[in-house]
């Protein structure tokens, strides 16, 4: 497997443009005919520290990061010291750090790992040619390209595109790039790329899960986006605002998350589609409103972008530890839907589904994502098909026949007619107190119970309508991994190579994207036939596992749980499979 991908880590301080250089490199690789995936690590501070953008590339689609890299580009001293240890044997470093001091421990590591290091006086070059030290980054990219043995034209085009709106800088940057490309690279050895450039998808888009959530929501007819900044959801807000002239969407940053949730329920009740997003701490503050959405049967869609908790936790790192929160938060018993995206494509599709579910079933829907999906760069060929909007609203002539008591009418499937303020003479009250069919408050035991049960019946109706989790990979496998979220990408990245090498010890994946109400048929099918199941989650307590145990009675004995703020690296899965083999 290892030989089927190469890994480049571009590192520097926060604020040194690591990310934009990462994007340039990824685009260049794409134009050269590779598939790439961009993974970011950065601290929760504005400038300084150390951060990287790592690009895994290959001749086939990749969507998860490796633990170690083959090439390290360093823009800052701290990043050199931080990331040297993450190089593979034979790894190579290009840095621009005058009089870099290397510690004894590092020397030892370098020797043992046969690491080669090259100093490029990129800043001097940049100042000379481009007049600005910041262009050193581009010089470094040129040198990288030399090391990769790739043609300069594609990356030159990317640089031209990148600086298209700063015309005065384009030529200088291109000159810097070429000058870097002409470096001698000292004792570095040109990278041996053992895989093909199957030059077919050079026009693929490179974008993050958050971008795709935003695009999916625009496609779904979302007309208002309210938010309070919180990593890793904030980049949705930034993007929504950046394109708001194009989309015409109302984009408004509010002053706290309770306001955000209430604005959304207000706008949804009035009759538009409003989207909101936050992370765990902000979500806590929204949970009373989720309870309200359940009670008043008002559509409500919230993206919960996970990061490690509790409390402030690791704000710029990744985790999948808020599944229980999504399912159980908000007081009282209410119907809701919880879905979890796993990559850019499912982001686009599930956010659209979420709005349809929320409107048709008149329930809150929580869309889980993770920093790993939110901020990684996925290569996407085309947009998945749009999902036709379903609003479940009374329309047209039927509006004239409505009575107030239709609004919360007791129905078999629990779903009652819904219409918007201003659309019919039949006015009603959406009441957070327990109520009768027209919303009038009631405290009667029988009538209360009936309305309570009606609401909860929607959960059964929805359950019947939701798809079962999918099995990815061979139909028959010696073990089935059960998982959700970004872990899917790592598992899939490993799957083909491993299964080819180990046809008898192969595996497949049962992926939950529609998580609650929980679908069990496929799972219990597997349980019943005695299929070995292994739970893989990016948290410490195995929350999906807990949910499945609760409803199926099955207890997972095999678990692979990770909770160090990092996503699953392909190595984590590979090594786990190897450990399993030797057990």
């Amino acid at each position, binding site marked *: 497997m290892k030989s089927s991908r190469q890994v480049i880590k571009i590192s520097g301080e926060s604020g040194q443009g690591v990310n934009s250089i990462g994007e340039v490199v990824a685009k260049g690789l794409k134009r050269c005919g590779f598939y790439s995936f961009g993974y970011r690590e950065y601290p929760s501070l504005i400038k300084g520290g150390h951060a990287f953008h790592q690009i895994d590339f290959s001749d086939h689609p990749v969507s998860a990061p490796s633990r170690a890299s083959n090439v390290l580009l360093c823009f800052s001293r701290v990043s050199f010291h931080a990331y040297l240890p993450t190089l593979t044997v034979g790894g190579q470093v290009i840095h621009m750090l005058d009089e870099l001091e290397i510690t004894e421990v590092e020397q030892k590591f370098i020797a043992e790992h046969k690491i080669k290091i090259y100093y490029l006086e990129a800043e001097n070059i940049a100042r000379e040619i481009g007049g600005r030290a910041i262009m050193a980054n581009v010089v470094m990219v040129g040198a990288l390209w030399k090391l990769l043995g790739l043609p300069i034209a594609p990356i030159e085009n990317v640089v031209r595109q990148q600086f298209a709106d700063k015309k005065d800088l384009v030529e200088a940057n291109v000159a810097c790039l070429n000058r870097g490309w002409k470096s001698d690279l000292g004792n570095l050895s040109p990278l041996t790329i053992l895989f093909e450039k199957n030059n077919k998808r050079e*026009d*693929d*888009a*490179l*974008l993050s899960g958050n*971008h795709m959530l935003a*695009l999916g929501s*625009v*496609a779904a007819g979302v*007309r*208002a986006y*309210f938010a309070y900044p919180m990593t890793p959801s904030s980049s949705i807000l930034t993007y929504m605002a950046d*394109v708001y002239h*194009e*989309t*015409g969407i*109302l*984009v*408004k940053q*509010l*002053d*706290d998350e*309770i*306001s955000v949730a*209430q*604005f959304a*329920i*207000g*706008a949804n009740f*009035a*009759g*538009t*589609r*409003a989207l909101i997003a936050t992370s765990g701490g902000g979500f806590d503050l929204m949970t*009373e*409103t989720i309870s309200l959405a359940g009670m*008043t049967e008002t559509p409500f869609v919230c993206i919960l972008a996970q990061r490690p908790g509790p409390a402030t936790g690791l704000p710029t790192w990744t985790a999948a530890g808020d599944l229980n929160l999504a399912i159980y938060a908000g007081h009282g018993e209410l119907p809701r839907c919880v879905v979890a995206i796993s990559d850019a494509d499912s982001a686009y599709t599930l956010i659209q589904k979420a709005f349809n579910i929320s409107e048709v079933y008149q329930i809150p829907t929580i869309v889980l994502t993770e920093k790993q999906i939110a901020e990684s760069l996925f290569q*996407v060929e085309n*947009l998945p098909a749009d999902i*036709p*909007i379903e*609003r479940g609203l009374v329309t047209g002539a039927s*509006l*004239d026949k409505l009575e107030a008591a239709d609004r919360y009418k007791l129905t078999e499937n629990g779903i009652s007619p819904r219409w*918007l*303020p*201003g*659309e*019919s*003479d039949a*006015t*009603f*009250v*959406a*009441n*957070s107190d327990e*109520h009768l069919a027209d*919303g*009038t*408050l009631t405290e009667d035991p029988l009538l209360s119970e009936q309305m309570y049960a009606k609401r909860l019946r929607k959960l059964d109706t929805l359950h019947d309508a939701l798809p079962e989790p999918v099995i990815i990979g061979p139909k028959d496998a010696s073990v089935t991994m059960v998982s959700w979220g970004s872990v899917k990408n790592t598992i899939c990245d490993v799957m083909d190579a491993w299964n080819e090498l180990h046809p008898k010890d192969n595996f497949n994946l049962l992926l939950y994207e529609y998580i609650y109400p929980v679908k069990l048929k496929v799972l219990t099918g597997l349980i019943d036939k005695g299929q070995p199941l292994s739970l893989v989650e990016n948290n410490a307590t195995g929350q999906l596992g807990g949910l499945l145990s609760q409803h199926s009675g099955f207890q997972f004995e095999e678990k692979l749980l990770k909770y160090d703020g990092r996503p699953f690296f392909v190595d984590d899965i590979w090594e786990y499979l190897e450990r399993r083999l030797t057990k």
Partner: protein
Amino acid sequence: MHSCNCGDRGHSHFSDFFSENIYTWCTNCGNYGIHAAVKRALVDLEIKPCQTLLAFDIGCHGNGSDKIGGYRFHGLHGRVIPFACGASTANSKVKIIAFGGDGGTLGEGINHLVLGIRGNYDITFVLHNNLNYGLTLGQPSATTKQGVAMNAAPDGVTSEPIHPMKFIFSLGPTFAARTFSGDVGHMAQTFKAAIEHPGFSFVEVLQSCPTYNLMTPHEWYQERIKDVSQIKGHDAGDISQANSIALDIEKEIAVGVLYQNKKSIPFNLRQANRVNKKTALVDEVKNLSVEKLFDSFR
């Protein structure tokens, strides 16, 4: 957007707002008058039930939410302002009036009052200021006077009360009025001005609560209120004048429209990317192609 078959303004009747549900407030509660005045204001403005969205907080006043006509939302304690503001961003054709108590508005949700005023969202907000938490049996609120013994504060509260007008004037409001639950006519007039104002209209109702507010009963207010029309030379367009006549809430209490900025631009008209839109957000929900946006990532 389909419009209800009652057509445009013009045929609204008091009885259209009638509900068969029976009010459950205490005898002589100020809330009765407030509801009567709200109905009268709407009828006078020829606004029909189906053309309104009345939003209620949780509190005694909110228990009236199922006893009046109109589209209504009875939400969470303290959250009526952001609910109503959110609704106002989506649909500006339906008149939105939000009602909140002093507990919900100046306690639990005071942050939202700040947000609503600063954003100048196009709603009318009616503060039922009865100087206590009525529905939870008479605990002190932020407007309870210092030293008055209440449920949960046997020796009286230890802070000075919030002065609602002083507070909101510090935030640059575009409309500020005060009225009294004992004078339906005055309330109706005041509500009408508030409803017609584009932007956030703040109306404080001095609401009598014969059960828990024994310090300043109906008569106490009755004796002290004075309409701005009787205050010589008051110019509601002058915020510093408004500020100063609003101050006295012990001896001579100014009621009526204390301040109105006639150039008020409501929130929806301040949005750079929407200001020329003819449609409201509620009219725009359809699948939109994002191909072009997607292409920019290629």
